[in-house]
């Protein structure tokens, strides 16, 4: 709509997805949640869904303003495929699978395969995101975002940490630090190996710090008008350590 207002796009036809009931809302299917593409950030911020996927709710609440969150959708965040898309690191950390529909029928694609570059997706012309599947996990979740102010701000970095106590794994999704959302696999492995899974606690506070450093090493941050690569790496290290310590509190050293 911003581009249309500015005269950069002049659509000759428009499809109103908000009127397609199949794309609205969310529901649970066993251990999975199916999020409709037209789910708005306001829908994710609070209530039952926020309790089931807290990192998504935290991310949603940092987006734009209340007026933006009332209309902007999950499908739109994926379709935009911006490196600064705030839900994308959360979806990456959750191993989200995107349901796509097109003339040739439907397919399911992992989010990280769907997003191929800065504002680029593997969606074919005429293909539409219809839903996103995420697991319901037992364990802490945390989303942290750094920007130049508290509201209405495009992310300088984002960190999403998701703990799966049953699968005994830690997952980290990073945003605004590469053309596409990044999974910090090395850091995840390290945290998983240094967790006392019987008690559901990190082995010690130093583990969170090292985890942060490893997350920073997995980025491909650049200098741009919003920040520098150095600052971004540093912010990822600090935020990732903090997020992990909140999602999986350490045993005292």
């Amino acid at each position, binding site marked *: *709509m911003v581009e249309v207002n*500015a005269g950069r796009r002049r659509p000759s036809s428009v499809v*109103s997805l908000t009127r397609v009931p199949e794309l609205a809302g969310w529901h649970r299917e066993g251990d999975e949640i199916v999020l409709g593409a037209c789910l708005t950030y*306001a829908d994710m911020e609070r209530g039952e869904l926020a309790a089931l996927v807290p990192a998504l709710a935290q991310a949603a609440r940092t987006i734009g303003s209340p*007026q933006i969150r009332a*209309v902007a959708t999950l499908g739109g965040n994926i379709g935009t495929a911006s490196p600064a898309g705030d839900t994308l690191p959360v979806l990456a950390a959750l191993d989200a699978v995107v349901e796509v529909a097109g003339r040739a029928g439907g397919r399911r694609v992992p989010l990280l395969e769907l997003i191929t570059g800065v504002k680029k997706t593997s969606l074919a012309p005429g293909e539409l995101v219809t839903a996103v599947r995420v697991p319901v996990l037992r364990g802490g979740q945390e989303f942290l975002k750094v920007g130049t102010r508290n509201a209405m701000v495009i992310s300088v970095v984002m960190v999403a940490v998701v703990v799966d106590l049953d699968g005994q794994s830690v997952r980290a999704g990073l945003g605004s630090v590469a053309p596409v959302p990044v999974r910090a696999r090395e850091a995840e492995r390290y945290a998983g190996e240094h967790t006392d899974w019987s008690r559901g606690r990190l082995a010690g506070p130093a583990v969170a710090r090292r985890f942060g450093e490893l997350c920073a090493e997995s980025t491909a941050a650049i200098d741009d008008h919003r920040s520098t690569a150095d600052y971004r790496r540093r912010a990822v290290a600090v935020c990732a350590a903090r997020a992990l310590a909140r999602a999986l509190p350490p045993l005292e050293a």
Partner: protein
Amino acid sequence: MTETVTYELMVNGERRVVEGSWLGESLLFALRERLGLPGSKNACEQGECGSCSVRLDDRLVCACLVLAADAQGRSVTTVEGLTGADGDALTDVQRAFLDEGGVQCGFCTPGLVMSVHDLLDRNPTPDDLELREAISGNLCRCTGYGRILAAARTVVARRGEASLHESEGPA
């Protein structure tokens, strides 16, 4: 060649016909330029300033980001559609903005009034952070927000007093 469309909007409880409009027009454009409702302001047309805030069904939105044709079948409330209690031309929020000096140039005022109403409808006793979050999508270049926050707190206090008096009943 641009095709035109005609459709109906429900604005402030009235059925209004938008004729000969281009499909890509925003709700803000339709309200201001086609329906003669200039209360919602146009400052950025990109969702940043909130001066175009209107209620679409039960949600506060930026009218500049809503496709006018997509607002068919929904209920739109603009600042012109607000009315005070007991025939007062101003709502209690508008009156508090005046009393507290929350209006300087006034450009942001309609949007902020809509935001404060929306907040207090959902949450009659917001704390300070909730109040700040609720107006985080509204830019004001004049007041520095202090008088606006004061106005919102005044509304909360006055409504609280009024309901206290009501519950005490006539003496």
